[in-house]
């Protein structure tokens, strides 16, 4: 007898699955450079400057120029590095980041050319756990990359990363349990459907704040960017990387930010749903989700422009002594309310 670990709801033929996978991959990788230049421009505005505005109209071709620059660089590695791990580590980082994109629900099930097509990569009944599992693996990308570089700064950065990711994943997981208890499902599309009356960030506001804070730590963003910490660790775990492996790490980081933003949108901001009873046709759904993702992403940038980096012991005590008890309390209170 085969044990089912997780139900994956397939109702499309295999070729639709492949097309969906390719479309999601292509769209996300078209959005990533735009997000990077968007971040740099918005960050500039927060600091009363323009940001990149020289390459192309309004500087939108800046990431293109940089990718070309990175691709032309000579590949090299330090003599102290471990060769094959040094090459594999960025691949692990980018593969896990891309795999996590599959779960973002961009819209409901649509009828396209007589086919039932769900506007998401996969709809698994373990939903958020899939993302956490991949986040757990992506930590190997950071850890191996830092360790195999054979550099002190990289190693320090990856050690910090290991501790940080483990600490904050607990709070992140606990913070969304409140939503899962309320929605009675782990499927992300199911969670969105459960928000048709009210978006979960209103009843689960504490959980939302905890999730957001833990997400900053999970994606190594300011004020929790101790993994990179350019002022003290040069560049953290990717200090020794240049050229395309560096771009792989960069894209993995931004893909992770898209995933986390999309998780926040799906779990707390009603996914493709619009407030005030507006019900647009189904093809609008992905754009609604994208707009919401960009809003959450802008908030990430806003926080980055505002808060200074925490000290390492502050990071640890904040994660374990404040965030984790709060998340547990939120879970317990929600459970009591739902049960009664």
């Amino acid at each position, binding site marked *: 007898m085969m044990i089912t670990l997780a139900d994956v709801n397939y109702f499309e033929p295999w070729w639709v699955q492949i097309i969906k996978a390719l479309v999601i991959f292509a769209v996300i990788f078209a959005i990533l450079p735009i997000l990077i230049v968007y971040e740099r421009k918005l960050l500039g*505005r*927060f*600091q*009363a400057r*323009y940001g990149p505005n020289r390459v192309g109209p309004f500087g939108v071709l800046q990431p293109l120029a940089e990718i070309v620059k990175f691709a032309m660089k000579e590949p090299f590695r330090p003599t102290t590095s471990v060769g094959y791990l040094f090459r594999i580590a960025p691949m692990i980082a980018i593969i896990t980041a891309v795999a996590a994109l599959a779960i973002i629900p961009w819209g409901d099930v649509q009828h396209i050319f007589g086919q039932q097509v769900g506007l998401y990569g996969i709809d698994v009944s373990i939903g958020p756990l899939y993302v956490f599992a991949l986040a757990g693996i992506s930590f190997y990308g950071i850890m191996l990359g830092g360790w195999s570089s054979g550099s002190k700064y990289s190693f320090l950065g990856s050690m910090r990363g290991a501790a940080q990711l483990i600490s904050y994943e607990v709070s992140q997981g606990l913070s969304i349990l409140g939503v899962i208890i309320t929605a009675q499902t782990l499927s992300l599309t199911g969670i969105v459907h459960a928000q048709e009356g009210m978006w979960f960030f209103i009843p689960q506001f504490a959980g939302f704040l905890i999730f957001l804070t833990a997400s900053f730590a999970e994606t190594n963003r300011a004020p929790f960017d101790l993994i990179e910490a350019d002022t003290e660790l040069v560049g953290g775990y990717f200090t020794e990387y240049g050229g395309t492996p560096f771009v792989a790490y960069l894209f993995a980081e931004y893909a992770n930010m898209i995933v986390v933003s999309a998780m926040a949108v799906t779990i707390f901001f009603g996914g493709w749903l619009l407030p005030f009873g507006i019900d647009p046709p189904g093809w609008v759904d992905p754009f609604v989700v994208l707009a919401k993702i960009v809003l959450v992403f802008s908030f990430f940038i806003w926080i980055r422009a*505002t808060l200074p980096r925490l000290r390492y012991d502050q990071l640890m005590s904040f994660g374990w002594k404040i965030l984790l008890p709060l998340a547990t309390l939120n879970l317990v209170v929600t459970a009591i309310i739902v049960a009664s």
Partner: protein
Amino acid sequence: MTPYDVSDDVIEVMRSPARGSAAGAYRTFGETLRGLKTTLARVVEGPVTIQYPEEKTPVYPRFRGRHKLHRFEDTGLEKCVGCSLCAAACPADCIRVVAAENTPENRISAGERYAAVYEINLSRCIFCGYCEVACPFDAITMGHDYEMSDYTRSDLIFTKEMLLAEAIERTPLRREGE
């Protein structure tokens, strides 16, 4: 005389709430929101950047830029008489003057002598304006041009002809009261 009362000038010091207390958490949250407001205000205000090659900051009338040599407007004779006071005043030692006698057939300056060679090495010049102060005939003044980058060092040695030529006004001048 009464002894000094210590309690007289005791000022109440506002202390921050203790770390880890509820008041501390409240304060941290409040300060975070205040910080977010500060950065958002910068977005609303817009950038303060001056897009340099396209836009330039106007200079003040007394701005000390590249030097100019002057002629008398009526006679067209050079004001410089080759006295070398500017070269003597120059702390960077970047001015070189070689004087020659004016003759009735070849009259160049209004004085007895004129500057046969007048060179300023702008790669050494510190733009202190002492040459302008030292000059007894106001023959040399500081202009407003500060865009002097060039490809070779020898191109930065400005000769008398270059300094006498009408300077290109590349720099906007600040108006009165601006």
